[in-house]
């Protein structure tokens, strides 16, 4: 639970920075350095994105229980697709919420 929350806050902050960086492209404000986002599944070599593995899936559903978009998590297209399927299966089994209550 705790890990999930900190993840959301961290990534959320980064998303805001991303938006600002896109606007100030010519850099009138302070220059923005952002870590290059990498796909967690590619770098950790996780082949099997399994719906039963809630520990793996939970960081990708922050507070509102919506699926974290690729632009924020940095997941590659292939793994985001697999992740989505796994999340939807886990939701059906009530391992992961559809919405925040």
């Amino acid at each position, binding site marked *: 639970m705790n890990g999930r929350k*900190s993840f959301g*806050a961290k990534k959320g902050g980064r998303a805001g920075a991303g938006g600002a960086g896109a606007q100030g492209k010519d850099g009138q404000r302070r220059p923005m*350095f952002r870590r290059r986002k990498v796909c967690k599944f590619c770098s950790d070599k996780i082949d099997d994105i399994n719906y039963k593995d809630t520990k793996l899936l939970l960081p990708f559903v922050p507070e509102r229980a919506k699926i974290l978009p690729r632009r924020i998590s940095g997941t590659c297209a292939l793994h985001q697709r697999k992740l989505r399927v796994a999340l939807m299966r886990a939701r059906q*089994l*009530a*391992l992961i919420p*559809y919405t925040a209550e």
Partner: protein
Amino acid sequence: MTRKYELVYVVSPEASDDQVTDLHNQVEAIVQRIGGSIEKTENWGRRRLAYEIGRHKEGTYVLEVLHGTGELMKEIDRRLKVTDLIIRHLVVRVDETQAVIERTKARRTATSQRRRVARGLPADRQPGEGQRGDADDDRDDRFDMGNERGMDR
């Protein structure tokens, strides 16, 4: 054409342990009648549901890995649907995805072995080798100043 399936069902929290095993026996009976086999059964025990399913807040999860045909799964699916004690179930075909996973794993070890041999190293990783030191941290966040909320971690 026999395939590999995973079946997870959530049993109502009111059910006793005997009823849970009884449900498992029912599934087993169907599998034997139609033809197929159970590879393994896992009882995850009682877990909190992420959301309420028909005023239930908890449920007992059971996972079964089965080999059988589509007809078998169809029948199991139908039976689970009409069983009141089962509040939710999911059938997933896993043989193809597992084959893909194995293929990617095999391909990855093959490439790494090839590259290691090309570098004049033994094909397999040696114990204690390749552990990351602090110096070669390519995920350095020293320059990560875009985070307005500060370094809360």
